[in-house]
């Protein structure tokens, strides 16, 4: 092979690169979504582990509740739950609007989801403040704050992602190459919701 041949090869390579770059871009969103789903499945095992730990503690600990604690208030968290769960429907509506290329509709419902998520976090903060036990109040306090806190962190991450997607919606031709970011954020939000439902049943309903 001479250097001229090499140069020619290089040129061909460039061309084929461009050709495949287009193919790949088409594929990339699919790959990303696939990878994201795998990641969520994996992430769910952390929650499953915490749930398993919670169940073991709950069923085996003799003095489950710390002294002076009667149980958990269910009413406020139930309202919170309703809001968080309904936000899953709202985010779905937002996604439909984006699908129909109605950006303002998308932004409105997207912002509404963020507001509902933020309200959930606010409600949780209020609840935490009113509680008589802390993180280090025995196994009960530990698991309670660990589960709600770890979940809250996910809600917070979800809101952050939503914020990024909202800002992106104001940049021009942002969704030309597919809406992976929005779809992934939305999927993440549903995931966080499902986790919360299990968590709510475990911690608040099963007392």
């Amino acid at each position, binding site marked *: 092979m001479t250097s001229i041949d090499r140069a020619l090869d290089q040129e061909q390579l460039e061309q084929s690169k461009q050709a495949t770059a287009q193919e790949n871009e088409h594929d990339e969103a699919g790959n990303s979504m696939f*990878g994201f789903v795998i990641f969520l499945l*994996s992430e769910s095992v952390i929650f499953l582990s915490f749930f398993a730990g919670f169940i073991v503690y709950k069923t085996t600990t003799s003095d489950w509740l710390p002294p002076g604690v009667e149980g958990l208030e269910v009413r406020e968290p139930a309202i919170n739950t309703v809001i968080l769960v309904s936000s899953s429907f709202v985010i779905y509506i937002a996604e439909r609007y984006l699908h129909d290329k109605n950006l303002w509709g998308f932004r409105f419902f997207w912002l509404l989801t963020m507001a509902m998520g933020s309200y959930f976090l606010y409600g949780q903060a209020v609840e935490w403040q009113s509680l008589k036990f802390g*993180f280090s109040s025995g196994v009960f306090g530990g698991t309670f704050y660990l589960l709600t806190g770890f979940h809250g962190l996910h809600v917070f991450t979800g809101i952050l992602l939503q914020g990024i997607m909202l800002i992106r919606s104001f940049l021009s031709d942002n969704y030309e190459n597919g809406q992976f970011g929005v779809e992934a954020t939305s999927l993440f939000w549903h995931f966080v919701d499902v986790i919360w439902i299990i968590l709510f049943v475990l911690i608040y309903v099963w007392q």
Partner: protein
Amino acid sequence: MTQIAPKKLPIEADSHEELLSWRRYFSFSTDHKVIGIQYIVTAFFFYLVAGIFAMIMRGELITPEPDLVDRTVYNALFTMHGTIMLFGWMFPVLAGFANYLVPIMIGARDMAFPRLNAVAFWMVPVFGIMFILSFLVPGGPAQAGWWSYPPVSVQNPTGQWLNGEFIWLLAVTISGVSSIMGAVNIVTTILRMRCPGMSWFKMPVFVWTVLAAQIIQLFGLPALTAGAVMLLCDLSFGTTFFDPSQGGNPVLFQHFFWFYSHPAVYVMILPVFGIFSEVFPVYARKPLFGYKVVAVSSLIITGLSAVVWVHHMFASGTPGWMRMLFMFSTMLISVPTGIKVFAWVGTIWGGKIRLDTPMLFALGGLINFVFSGITGIMLSSVPIDIHVNNTYFVVGHFHYVIYGAIVFGLYGGIYHWFPKMTGKMYYEGLGKLHFWLTFIGTTLNFLPMHPLGLMGMPRRVASYDPEFAFWNVLASIGAFLLGMSTVPFLINMVSSWIAGKKAGDNPWRAIGLEWLLSSPPDVENFEELPIVIAEPYGYGKSEPLTENMG
């Protein structure tokens, strides 16, 4: 199939390219081949570090008294030896192999997520250096063993907030994040980036085993992460999850830990099964015996690996039914692994065997693996396990798996693909010397651990009764020999990479997509994506592998 090495390129172009490639390895490259080599080389550094720890430990154990280092130092050494070997060497080096080989074996131009790939790699030096720097904090590094069982692990005698165990937990978590990133990437790549014609049963076994291993990472690692987070809370934030004096349950941590950490052994050995399956056909010049069964049995191992973890806890106070259940599930693992072993023997049988270094390592690894499998069955049997659990018998078994089988397989893999990765040929003589030193060192180091365990010497001891002295001296000599065995390897790798003979594209006359590429492959791997038309390992049947290449 045989290809003659291309004529030498003009010197200027050649050295220019080399210089560039040399720099690439120190950059934030997103090329899977660069990342693969970055992984392997970085991991090897940590392997040497943890190996030195092991040699200091064996130095301590050459006499019964605790005379070489303080007991706290010894405890730190065995903790960090295990930790760095697993998190700094094993997982990264295997990620390196998977990174380098999977795309070129399935006909992809790169991994599915090249940037994620690079980020995952650059976490390795971060947590590796954290492990090493933890020697400098007051109170020293973690001293609770790599299992980090509470309550010992949360006792924190210094009372400092920044302590060895804290850094350990943080570093292990970062390692977990890096591994999950890698696993998501590798699984997506294998499932979605295969070239035309690369159906499931045209994939090389290495790809199958990597897939099987990475699935374990995905479902197993999060459990360890959960346990580590809770342990960190106990250590630093005053919770009592695992503190029995305040209602916690220390055995729960053991469940979290082993739910991941036993399958983790399969994460490590499965790709090595893959390497064996690639190497034997090449040097025996025969197709892999029962390819499909070998491939599928990897996934069976993955499935079973999720239900065996309690066998580490037979002496922890496990109910009888649990002991029996997990004994049986553990023993069942030997069926799919047995299938593989017999298939390799079937591959070798009646072949045209060449004893090049990769083949030597694969053969040595195979024999060591059979031995460790037999001791593994013994350990799974509850009555025997009650006697030898937590003794040197387990240490011997484990090192026969990890070193005798896995590291042998890795060495074999490095030699086998070295010409592909570097374009150069290693020195066969040094390779053979390396093999024999390693094989003798391994036997001398790890075989005596079995009688020690049977006699009742517990693991993790800095001192022992004089009755154990004889076998310990032998083991120590073996350990020093093993340490020395890396010298010819390093000389071989460095000198042949710099000044070795040029290897052709396919020096082993091997069949496989990677061998149709130039050595080293171009940045984009394939000029044109291959169209695969044949099953792998078509030795003895001159039939092209692809429609459009070589």
